[in-house]
Protein backbone atom coordinates (compact mmCIF):
# COMPACT_ATOMS: atom_id res chain seq x y z
CA UNK A 1 0.00 0.00 0.00
CA UNK A 2 1.30 3.42 -0.87
CA UNK A 3 0.43 6.61 0.97
CA UNK A 4 -0.65 9.46 -1.29
CA UNK A 5 0.52 12.99 -0.69
CA UNK A 6 -2.92 14.18 0.38
CA UNK A 7 -3.13 11.28 2.80
CA UNK A 8 0.30 12.14 4.14
CA UNK A 9 -0.83 15.72 4.58
CA UNK A 10 -3.95 14.69 6.46
CA UNK A 11 -1.86 12.44 8.70
CA UNK A 12 0.29 15.50 9.42
CA UNK A 13 -2.86 17.42 10.34
CA UNK A 14 -3.93 14.68 12.75
CA UNK A 15 -0.51 14.93 14.34
CA UNK A 16 -0.89 18.71 14.61
CA UNK A 17 -4.31 18.31 16.27
CA UNK A 18 -2.74 15.96 18.82
CA UNK A 19 -0.21 18.56 19.88
CA UNK A 20 -1.01 19.81 23.38
CA UNK A 21 -2.09 23.39 22.88
CA UNK A 22 -3.96 23.17 19.62
CA UNK A 23 -7.04 25.28 20.22
CA UNK A 24 -9.23 23.52 17.63
CA UNK A 25 -10.16 20.67 19.86
CA UNK A 26 -9.44 22.17 23.29
CA UNK A 27 -6.77 20.92 25.64
CA UNK A 28 -8.84 17.90 26.54
CA UNK A 29 -9.33 17.28 22.86
CA UNK A 30 -5.61 17.23 22.15
CA UNK A 31 -5.27 14.85 25.06
CA UNK A 32 -7.78 12.68 23.25
CA UNK A 33 -6.26 12.84 19.77
CA UNK A 34 -2.78 12.55 21.21
CA UNK A 35 -3.47 8.96 22.28
CA UNK A 36 -2.50 6.32 19.68
CA UNK A 37 -5.80 4.62 20.50
CA UNK A 38 -7.55 7.56 18.87
CA UNK A 39 -5.11 8.86 16.27
CA UNK A 40 -4.48 5.33 15.06
CA UNK A 41 -8.15 5.07 14.17
CA UNK A 42 -8.05 8.46 12.43
CA UNK A 43 -5.00 7.49 10.41
CA UNK A 44 -6.74 4.25 9.50
CA UNK A 45 -9.73 6.26 8.32
CA UNK A 46 -7.47 8.39 6.13
CA UNK A 47 -5.85 5.29 4.70
CA UNK A 48 -9.22 3.69 4.08
CA UNK A 49 -9.25 1.04 6.79
CA UNK A 50 -10.32 2.49 10.15
CA UNK A 51 -10.70 -0.94 11.75
CA UNK A 52 -7.12 -1.84 10.99
CA UNK A 53 -6.02 1.60 12.17
CA UNK A 54 -7.85 1.06 15.43
CA UNK A 55 -6.09 -2.25 15.96
CA UNK A 56 -2.70 -0.66 15.26
CA UNK A 57 -3.55 2.26 17.50
CA UNK A 58 -4.58 -0.01 20.37
CA UNK A 59 -1.30 -1.88 20.09
CA UNK A 60 0.84 1.25 19.93
CA UNK A 61 -1.08 2.69 22.89
CA UNK A 62 0.19 -0.05 25.17
CA UNK A 63 3.68 1.29 25.97
CA UNK A 64 2.16 4.73 26.63
CA UNK A 65 -0.65 3.72 29.00
CA UNK A 66 0.88 5.54 31.96
CA UNK A 67 1.94 8.58 29.94
CA UNK A 68 1.48 11.87 31.80
CA UNK A 69 2.30 15.34 30.58
CA UNK A 70 2.44 17.56 33.65
CA UNK A 71 3.93 21.01 33.99
CA UNK A 72 4.43 21.24 30.26
CA UNK A 73 6.76 18.26 30.18
CA UNK A 74 6.30 15.73 27.44
CA UNK A 75 8.32 12.61 28.16
CA UNK A 76 7.46 11.00 24.83
CA UNK A 77 5.59 12.25 21.78
CA UNK A 78 2.70 9.80 21.70
CA UNK A 79 0.91 11.67 18.91
CA UNK A 80 3.81 11.19 16.51
CA UNK A 81 4.25 7.62 17.67
CA UNK A 82 0.61 6.82 17.04
CA UNK A 83 0.18 8.57 13.70
CA UNK A 84 3.46 7.55 12.07
CA UNK A 85 3.50 4.14 13.74
CA UNK A 86 0.09 3.30 12.36
CA UNK A 87 0.71 4.83 8.95
CA UNK A 88 4.04 3.13 8.37
CA UNK A 89 2.86 -0.13 9.89
CA UNK A 90 -0.20 -0.26 7.68
CA UNK A 91 1.78 0.81 4.60
CA UNK A 92 4.47 -1.81 4.99
CA UNK A 93 1.91 -4.39 6.06
CA UNK A 94 3.67 -5.54 9.21
CA UNK A 95 2.03 -6.80 12.38
CA UNK A 96 0.98 -4.34 15.08
CA UNK A 97 3.71 -5.58 17.41
CA UNK A 98 6.34 -4.67 14.83
CA UNK A 99 4.78 -1.24 14.62
CA UNK A 100 5.37 -0.81 18.35
CA UNK A 101 9.11 -1.26 17.94
CA UNK A 102 9.00 1.55 15.40
CA UNK A 103 6.69 3.77 17.43
CA UNK A 104 8.72 3.95 20.61
CA UNK A 105 11.89 5.46 19.07
CA UNK A 106 9.71 7.81 17.00
CA UNK A 107 8.09 9.06 20.21
CA UNK A 108 11.49 9.88 21.64
CA UNK A 109 12.59 11.84 18.59
CA UNK A 110 9.28 13.68 18.53
CA UNK A 111 9.85 15.36 21.90
CA UNK A 112 12.28 17.70 20.12
CA UNK A 113 9.39 19.32 18.28
CA UNK A 114 7.68 20.04 21.57
CA UNK A 115 10.77 21.56 23.17
CA UNK A 116 11.32 23.67 20.07
CA UNK A 117 7.85 25.20 20.00
CA UNK A 118 7.84 25.85 23.75
CA UNK A 119 11.01 27.86 23.15
CA UNK A 120 9.86 29.72 20.04
CA UNK A 121 6.61 30.77 21.71
CA UNK A 122 8.58 32.85 24.20
CA UNK A 123 8.98 35.45 21.42
CA UNK A 124 5.24 35.93 21.20
CA UNK A 125 4.95 36.48 24.94
CA UNK A 126 7.46 39.29 24.69
CA UNK A 127 5.44 40.82 21.88
CA UNK A 128 2.36 40.51 24.06
CA UNK A 129 4.20 42.34 26.84
CA UNK A 130 4.64 45.34 24.56
CA UNK A 131 0.97 45.26 23.71
CA UNK A 132 0.09 45.08 27.41
CA UNK A 133 2.14 48.23 28.08
CA UNK A 134 -0.15 49.99 25.65
CA UNK A 135 -3.26 48.38 27.04
CA UNK A 136 -3.89 46.81 23.64
CA UNK A 137 -6.03 43.82 24.58
CA UNK A 138 -7.05 43.01 21.02
CA UNK A 139 -3.46 42.60 19.93
CA UNK A 140 -2.72 40.20 22.75
CA UNK A 141 -5.74 38.15 21.71
CA UNK A 142 -4.32 37.94 18.20
CA UNK A 143 -0.76 37.26 19.29
CA UNK A 144 -1.92 34.49 21.57
CA UNK A 145 -3.47 32.52 18.74
CA UNK A 146 -2.07 33.09 15.28
CA UNK A 147 1.72 33.22 15.36
CA UNK A 148 2.17 30.26 17.71
CA UNK A 149 -0.40 28.15 15.92
CA UNK A 150 1.05 28.80 12.49
CA UNK A 151 4.46 27.90 13.82
CA UNK A 152 3.11 24.78 15.42
CA UNK A 153 1.29 23.80 12.25
CA UNK A 154 4.47 24.02 10.23
CA UNK A 155 6.58 22.26 12.85
CA UNK A 156 4.11 19.42 13.04
CA UNK A 157 2.72 18.88 9.59
CA UNK A 158 5.94 19.08 7.60
CA UNK A 159 7.96 16.35 9.29
CA UNK A 160 5.01 14.03 9.83
CA UNK A 161 3.86 14.43 6.23
CA UNK A 162 7.33 13.79 4.83
CA UNK A 163 7.87 10.73 6.97
CA UNK A 164 4.49 9.31 6.07
CA UNK A 165 5.01 10.02 2.40
CA UNK A 166 8.53 8.68 1.97
CA UNK A 167 7.57 5.75 4.13
CA UNK A 168 9.00 3.11 6.35
CA UNK A 169 12.30 2.80 4.48
CA UNK A 170 13.91 6.14 5.39
CA UNK A 171 12.35 6.11 8.85
CA UNK A 172 13.80 2.70 9.55
CA UNK A 173 17.19 3.92 8.33
CA UNK A 174 17.08 6.78 10.79
CA UNK A 175 15.94 4.53 13.61
CA UNK A 176 18.50 1.90 12.67
CA UNK A 177 21.21 4.54 12.86
CA UNK A 178 20.03 5.37 16.32
CA UNK A 179 19.95 1.84 17.67
CA UNK A 180 22.30 1.07 20.53
CA UNK A 181 23.73 3.94 22.52
CA UNK A 182 21.90 6.82 20.77
CA UNK A 183 18.54 5.19 21.46
CA UNK A 184 19.56 4.56 25.06
CA UNK A 185 20.50 8.23 25.37
CA UNK A 186 17.14 9.28 23.92
CA UNK A 187 15.33 6.99 26.35
CA UNK A 188 17.28 8.42 29.24
CA UNK A 189 16.44 11.97 28.15
CA UNK A 190 12.77 11.01 27.84
CA UNK A 191 12.92 9.81 31.44
CA UNK A 192 14.64 12.96 32.66
CA UNK A 193 12.54 15.65 30.98
CA UNK A 194 9.47 15.17 33.22
CA UNK A 195 11.62 16.38 36.10
CA UNK A 196 11.27 19.84 34.60
CA UNK A 197 7.50 19.55 34.53
CA UNK A 198 7.38 18.53 38.16
CA UNK A 199 9.84 21.24 39.08
CA UNK A 200 7.77 23.88 37.25
CA UNK A 201 4.68 22.90 39.19
CA UNK A 202 6.57 22.62 42.47
CA UNK A 203 8.21 25.96 41.99
CA UNK A 204 4.79 27.47 41.47
CA UNK A 205 3.80 26.38 44.97
CA UNK A 206 4.42 29.20 47.35
CA UNK A 207 3.20 27.60 50.55
CA UNK A 208 5.20 26.67 53.62
CA UNK A 209 6.76 23.25 53.62
CA UNK A 210 6.21 22.54 49.93
CA UNK A 211 9.36 20.49 49.64
CA UNK A 212 8.59 18.44 52.73
CA UNK A 213 5.10 17.62 51.54
CA UNK A 214 6.48 16.79 48.11
CA UNK A 215 8.99 14.47 49.71
CA UNK A 216 6.23 12.90 51.77
CA UNK A 217 4.17 12.14 48.68
CA UNK A 218 7.18 10.80 46.85
CA UNK A 219 8.26 8.53 49.70
CA UNK A 220 4.71 7.28 50.27
CA UNK A 221 4.34 6.40 46.61
CA UNK A 222 7.71 4.77 46.32
CA UNK A 223 7.49 2.64 49.45
CA UNK A 224 3.80 1.84 49.74
CA UNK A 225 3.27 1.15 46.05
CA UNK A 226 -0.33 2.26 46.54
CA UNK A 227 -2.42 3.38 43.57
CA UNK A 228 -2.20 7.12 43.14
CA UNK A 229 -5.84 7.64 44.05
CA UNK A 230 -5.30 6.02 47.42
CA UNK A 231 -2.41 8.38 48.06
CA UNK A 232 -4.63 11.27 47.03
CA UNK A 233 -7.15 10.19 49.69
CA UNK A 234 -4.39 10.10 52.29
CA UNK A 235 -3.28 13.51 51.06
CA UNK A 236 -6.77 14.86 51.67
CA UNK A 237 -6.72 13.51 55.22
CA UNK A 238 -3.27 14.87 55.95
CA UNK A 239 -4.12 18.25 54.46
CA UNK A 240 -7.29 18.40 56.50
CA UNK A 241 -5.50 17.70 59.77
CA UNK A 242 -2.65 20.05 58.90
CA UNK A 243 -5.02 22.87 58.00
CA UNK A 244 -7.04 22.39 61.18
CA UNK A 245 -3.95 22.55 63.32
CA UNK A 246 -2.21 25.26 61.35
CA UNK A 247 -5.10 27.70 61.48
CA UNK A 248 -6.15 26.81 65.02
CA UNK A 249 -6.16 29.72 67.37
CA UNK A 250 -4.08 29.04 70.44
CA UNK A 251 -6.29 27.18 72.90
CA UNK A 252 -7.29 29.04 76.01
CA UNK A 253 -7.20 25.97 78.16
CA UNK A 254 -4.03 24.12 77.35
Amino acid at each position, binding site marked *: MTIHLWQAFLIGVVYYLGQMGTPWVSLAGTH*TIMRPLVNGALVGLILGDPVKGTIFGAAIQLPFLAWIGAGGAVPMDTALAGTLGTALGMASNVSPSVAITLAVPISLIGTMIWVLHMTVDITFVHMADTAAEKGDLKRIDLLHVWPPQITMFVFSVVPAMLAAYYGAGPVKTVIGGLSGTPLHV*LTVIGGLLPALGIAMNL*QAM*TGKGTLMFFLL*GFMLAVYSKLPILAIAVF*AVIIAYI*YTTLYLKKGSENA
Partner: protein
Amino acid sequence: MSDKEEIEKEVLPSENNPDAKKISKKEVVKAFWRWTFFSHANYNYERLQATGVVFALSPILKHLYGNDQDAMKEALKRHMQFFNTEPHFGGAILGMTIAMEEEKSNGAPITNDTINGLKTGLMGPLAGIGDTLWQGTLIPILLSFTIGFASKGNILMGPVLFAVLHLGIIWSIGYFSWMQGYSLGKEGIAKVLQGSLLPTVMTFAQCMGPIVIGALSATFVKVSSPLKIQLGKSVLKVQSGILDKLVLGLLPLGITLLAYYLLKRKFKPTTVVLILVLIGVIGGAFYII
Protein backbone atom coordinates in the same frame (compact mmCIF):
# COMPACT_ATOMS: atom_id res chain seq x y z
CA MET B 1 -25.23 56.48 56.93
CA SER B 2 -23.64 54.71 59.84
CA ASP B 3 -20.05 53.55 59.90
CA LYS B 4 -21.04 49.95 59.76
CA GLU B 5 -23.09 50.40 56.65
CA GLU B 6 -20.25 52.17 55.02
CA ILE B 7 -17.90 49.33 55.72
CA GLU B 8 -20.31 46.80 54.33
CA LYS B 9 -20.80 48.84 51.26
CA GLU B 10 -17.06 49.03 50.84
CA VAL B 11 -16.68 45.31 51.24
CA LEU B 12 -19.17 44.29 48.62
CA PRO B 13 -19.72 47.36 46.47
CA SER B 14 -21.49 45.60 43.64
CA GLU B 15 -24.32 44.36 45.82
CA ASN B 16 -25.57 47.66 47.14
CA ASN B 17 -24.62 49.85 44.25
CA PRO B 18 -27.10 50.21 41.41
CA ASP B 19 -24.41 51.67 39.13
CA ALA B 20 -22.03 48.77 39.64
CA LYS B 21 -20.74 46.87 36.63
CA LYS B 22 -22.26 43.40 36.58
CA ILE B 23 -20.73 40.45 34.83
CA SER B 24 -23.46 38.28 33.42
CA LYS B 25 -23.49 34.50 33.65
CA LYS B 26 -23.17 34.42 29.86
CA GLU B 27 -19.89 36.29 30.05
CA VAL B 28 -18.55 33.96 32.70
CA VAL B 29 -19.44 30.96 30.54
CA LYS B 30 -17.90 32.58 27.48
CA ALA B 31 -14.65 33.09 29.36
CA PHE B 32 -14.81 29.46 30.41
CA TRP B 33 -14.94 28.21 26.83
CA ARG B 34 -12.21 30.60 25.71
CA TRP B 35 -10.04 29.13 28.47
CA THR B 36 -11.02 25.53 27.74
CA PHE B 37 -10.06 25.84 24.10
CA PHE B 38 -7.23 28.35 24.12
CA SER B 39 -5.39 27.91 27.43
CA HIS B 40 -2.36 26.37 25.73
CA ALA B 41 -2.47 28.07 22.33
CA ASN B 42 0.73 29.96 23.11
CA TYR B 43 2.23 27.65 25.70
CA ASN B 44 5.86 28.50 26.35
CA TYR B 45 8.77 27.97 28.69
CA GLU B 46 8.84 31.49 30.00
CA ARG B 47 5.41 32.28 31.32
CA LEU B 48 3.46 29.18 30.32
CA GLN B 49 -0.27 29.95 30.34
CA ALA B 50 0.05 33.72 30.91
CA THR B 51 -1.30 34.89 27.57
CA GLY B 52 -3.89 32.12 27.81
CA VAL B 53 -5.25 33.76 30.95
CA VAL B 54 -5.43 37.16 29.30
CA PHE B 55 -7.12 35.65 26.24
CA ALA B 56 -9.70 33.86 28.36
CA LEU B 57 -10.46 36.86 30.56
CA SER B 58 -10.45 39.19 27.58
CA PRO B 59 -14.24 39.77 27.37
CA ILE B 60 -14.40 40.28 31.14
CA LEU B 61 -11.56 42.77 31.16
CA LYS B 62 -13.07 44.67 28.24
CA HIS B 63 -16.36 44.94 30.10
CA LEU B 64 -14.79 46.06 33.34
CA TYR B 65 -11.93 48.28 32.18
CA GLY B 66 -12.96 48.98 28.58
CA ASN B 67 -13.22 52.67 29.15
CA ASP B 68 -10.46 53.10 31.72
CA GLN B 69 -7.20 52.72 29.83
CA ASP B 70 -5.03 52.94 32.95
CA ALA B 71 -6.94 50.27 34.82
CA MET B 72 -6.79 48.11 31.70
CA LYS B 73 -3.01 48.43 31.47
CA GLU B 74 -2.69 47.50 35.09
CA ALA B 75 -5.00 44.51 34.68
CA LEU B 76 -3.09 43.28 31.64
CA LYS B 77 0.22 43.48 33.45
CA ARG B 78 -1.36 41.70 36.39
CA HIS B 79 -2.35 38.75 34.27
CA MET B 80 0.68 38.60 32.01
CA GLN B 81 2.54 37.05 34.95
CA PHE B 82 3.73 33.45 34.99
CA PHE B 83 0.73 31.18 35.35
CA ASN B 84 0.42 27.43 35.11
CA THR B 85 -2.15 25.05 36.42
CA GLU B 86 -4.14 22.05 35.36
CA PRO B 87 -6.76 23.94 33.34
CA HIS B 88 -9.85 21.95 34.27
CA PHE B 89 -9.58 21.71 38.03
CA GLY B 90 -7.56 24.91 38.15
CA GLY B 91 -10.32 26.75 36.31
CA ALA B 92 -11.73 27.47 39.77
CA ILE B 93 -8.90 29.93 40.24
CA LEU B 94 -9.90 31.95 37.20
CA GLY B 95 -13.55 31.75 38.21
CA MET B 96 -12.59 33.33 41.50
CA THR B 97 -10.37 35.80 39.69
CA ILE B 98 -13.30 37.01 37.61
CA ALA B 99 -15.34 37.57 40.78
CA MET B 100 -12.50 39.53 42.32
CA GLU B 101 -11.91 41.62 39.23
CA GLU B 102 -15.61 42.41 39.16
CA GLU B 103 -15.57 43.65 42.75
CA LYS B 104 -12.27 45.44 42.28
CA SER B 105 -13.50 47.35 39.28
CA ASN B 106 -16.43 48.47 41.41
CA GLY B 107 -14.08 49.82 44.03
CA ALA B 108 -13.70 47.00 46.52
CA PRO B 109 -10.39 47.21 48.34
CA ILE B 110 -8.81 44.33 46.46
CA THR B 111 -5.17 44.91 45.62
CA ASN B 112 -3.00 43.53 42.87
CA ASP B 113 -1.34 41.45 45.56
CA THR B 114 -4.56 39.82 46.68
CA ILE B 115 -5.33 38.65 43.16
CA ASN B 116 -1.76 37.58 42.52
CA GLY B 117 -1.65 35.80 45.86
CA LEU B 118 -4.76 33.90 45.00
CA LYS B 119 -3.47 32.87 41.60
CA THR B 120 0.05 31.90 42.61
CA GLY B 121 -1.12 30.33 45.82
CA LEU B 122 -3.51 27.94 44.17
CA MET B 123 -2.13 27.30 40.69
CA GLY B 124 0.58 24.87 41.81
CA PRO B 125 -1.53 22.79 44.18
CA LEU B 126 -4.38 22.55 41.69
CA ALA B 127 -1.94 21.53 38.98
CA GLY B 128 -0.82 18.69 41.20
CA ILE B 129 -4.27 17.64 42.27
CA GLY B 130 -5.75 18.03 38.81
CA ASP B 131 -3.02 16.13 37.02
CA THR B 132 -3.27 13.31 39.53
CA LEU B 133 -6.97 12.90 39.14
CA TRP B 134 -7.15 13.57 35.45
CA GLN B 135 -4.00 12.39 33.68
CA GLY B 136 -2.89 10.02 36.43
CA THR B 137 -6.20 8.36 37.18
CA LEU B 138 -9.07 9.11 34.84
CA ILE B 139 -7.29 8.66 31.52
CA PRO B 140 -5.54 5.37 32.39
CA ILE B 141 -8.85 3.94 33.59
CA LEU B 142 -10.67 5.01 30.44
CA LEU B 143 -7.85 3.70 28.28
CA SER B 144 -7.65 0.31 29.92
CA PHE B 145 -11.40 0.05 29.69
CA THR B 146 -11.64 0.81 25.98
CA ILE B 147 -8.36 -0.60 24.69
CA GLY B 148 -9.64 -4.15 25.02
CA PHE B 149 -12.41 -3.43 22.53
CA ALA B 150 -10.12 -1.47 20.24
CA SER B 151 -7.61 -4.29 19.98
CA LYS B 152 -10.45 -6.37 18.56
CA GLY B 153 -11.08 -3.66 15.98
CA ASN B 154 -14.19 -2.29 17.68
CA ILE B 155 -14.15 1.40 16.73
CA LEU B 156 -17.27 2.40 18.60
CA MET B 157 -16.44 0.86 21.98
CA GLY B 158 -12.76 1.70 21.45
CA PRO B 159 -11.60 5.13 20.28
CA VAL B 160 -15.07 6.67 20.01
CA LEU B 161 -16.17 5.68 23.50
CA PHE B 162 -12.86 6.83 24.92
CA ALA B 163 -13.19 10.23 23.25
CA VAL B 164 -16.80 10.72 24.32
CA LEU B 165 -16.24 9.70 27.94
CA HIS B 166 -13.02 11.66 28.23
CA LEU B 167 -14.38 14.89 26.84
CA GLY B 168 -17.71 14.49 28.62
CA ILE B 169 -16.20 13.95 32.02
CA ILE B 170 -13.39 16.43 31.88
CA TRP B 171 -15.35 19.28 30.35
CA SER B 172 -18.04 18.76 32.99
CA ILE B 173 -15.44 18.94 35.71
CA GLY B 174 -13.93 22.00 34.12
CA TYR B 175 -17.28 23.76 33.82
CA PHE B 176 -18.32 22.88 37.35
CA SER B 177 -15.00 23.98 38.75
CA TRP B 178 -15.03 27.29 36.88
CA MET B 179 -18.60 28.22 37.87
CA GLN B 180 -18.04 27.04 41.42
CA GLY B 181 -14.95 29.21 41.58
CA TYR B 182 -16.94 32.20 40.38
CA SER B 183 -19.78 31.80 42.86
CA LEU B 184 -17.38 30.99 45.69
CA GLY B 185 -15.65 34.18 44.76
CA LYS B 186 -18.90 36.14 44.75
CA GLU B 187 -20.43 34.73 47.90
CA GLY B 188 -17.19 34.34 49.70
CA ILE B 189 -15.63 37.61 48.79
CA ALA B 190 -16.60 39.21 52.06
CA LYS B 191 -15.18 36.26 53.90
CA VAL B 192 -12.18 36.28 51.63
CA LEU B 193 -11.55 39.90 52.40
CA GLN B 194 -11.96 39.31 56.10
CA GLY B 195 -9.51 36.53 55.64
CA SER B 196 -11.22 33.46 57.03
CA LEU B 197 -11.94 31.46 53.89
CA LEU B 198 -8.90 31.98 51.73
CA PRO B 199 -6.31 30.86 54.30
CA THR B 200 -8.22 27.63 54.81
CA VAL B 201 -8.47 26.85 51.11
CA MET B 202 -4.86 27.85 50.52
CA THR B 203 -3.36 25.99 53.44
CA PHE B 204 -5.29 22.91 52.44
CA ALA B 205 -4.27 23.11 48.80
CA GLN B 206 -0.69 23.95 49.59
CA CYS B 207 -0.42 20.86 51.74
CA MET B 208 -2.33 18.46 49.52
CA GLY B 209 -0.86 19.71 46.24
CA PRO B 210 2.77 18.90 46.90
CA ILE B 211 1.89 15.51 48.35
CA VAL B 212 0.06 14.32 45.26
CA ILE B 213 2.63 15.84 42.96
CA GLY B 214 5.26 13.93 44.91
CA ALA B 215 3.34 10.74 44.38
CA LEU B 216 2.90 11.54 40.70
CA SER B 217 6.56 12.26 40.17
CA ALA B 218 7.45 8.87 41.59
CA THR B 219 6.12 7.29 38.41
CA PHE B 220 6.64 10.24 36.12
CA VAL B 221 10.39 10.79 36.30
CA LYS B 222 12.33 7.69 35.32
CA VAL B 223 16.03 7.33 35.99
CA SER B 224 17.97 4.35 37.19
CA SER B 225 21.54 3.18 37.00
CA PRO B 226 22.63 0.15 34.97
CA LEU B 227 26.10 0.35 36.57
CA LYS B 228 27.71 -2.83 37.88
CA ILE B 229 30.78 -3.12 40.06
CA GLN B 230 32.96 -6.20 39.92
CA LEU B 231 33.72 -7.36 43.49
CA GLY B 232 36.17 -10.23 43.30
CA LYS B 233 34.07 -12.78 41.51
CA SER B 234 30.67 -11.48 42.52
CA VAL B 235 28.96 -8.49 40.98
CA LEU B 236 27.41 -5.54 42.81
CA LYS B 237 24.53 -3.89 40.97
CA VAL B 238 24.60 -0.21 41.85
CA GLN B 239 20.84 0.27 41.50
CA SER B 240 19.49 -2.70 43.42
CA GLY B 241 22.51 -3.28 45.64
CA ILE B 242 23.25 0.26 46.82
CA LEU B 243 20.79 2.96 45.73
CA ASP B 244 17.59 1.02 46.42
CA LYS B 245 18.90 0.02 49.83
CA LEU B 246 19.51 3.62 50.81
CA VAL B 247 16.29 5.22 49.63
CA LEU B 248 14.07 3.98 46.82
CA GLY B 249 13.84 6.43 43.96
CA LEU B 250 16.96 8.33 44.96
CA LEU B 251 17.88 9.18 41.37
CA PRO B 252 14.48 10.48 40.15
CA LEU B 253 14.15 12.40 43.38
CA GLY B 254 17.62 13.86 42.98
CA ILE B 255 17.03 14.91 39.38
CA THR B 256 13.71 16.51 40.24
CA LEU B 257 15.20 18.42 43.14
CA LEU B 258 18.06 19.52 40.90
CA ALA B 259 15.61 20.92 38.35
CA TYR B 260 13.68 22.58 41.16
CA TYR B 261 16.81 24.07 42.63
CA LEU B 262 17.89 25.45 39.27
CA LEU B 263 14.50 27.08 38.69
CA LYS B 264 14.63 28.57 42.19
CA ARG B 265 18.06 29.94 41.36
CA LYS B 266 16.38 31.76 38.45
CA PHE B 267 17.70 29.52 35.70
CA LYS B 268 15.46 29.74 32.66
CA PRO B 269 13.42 26.62 31.93
CA THR B 270 15.11 26.37 28.53
CA THR B 271 18.46 26.25 30.29
CA VAL B 272 17.16 23.54 32.57
CA VAL B 273 16.01 21.55 29.54
CA LEU B 274 19.53 21.88 28.15
CA ILE B 275 21.09 20.75 31.41
CA LEU B 276 18.78 17.74 31.62
CA VAL B 277 19.60 16.84 28.01
CA LEU B 278 23.30 17.15 28.77
CA ILE B 279 22.97 14.91 31.82
CA GLY B 280 21.08 12.46 29.66
CA VAL B 281 23.69 12.49 26.91
CA ILE B 282 26.67 12.08 29.19
CA GLY B 283 25.04 9.73 31.70
CA GLY B 284 23.43 7.71 28.94
CA ALA B 285 26.49 7.46 26.70
CA PHE B 286 28.58 6.09 29.54
CA TYR B 287 25.71 3.94 30.79
CA ILE B 288 25.87 5.55 34.18
CA ILE B 289 22.11 6.08 33.97
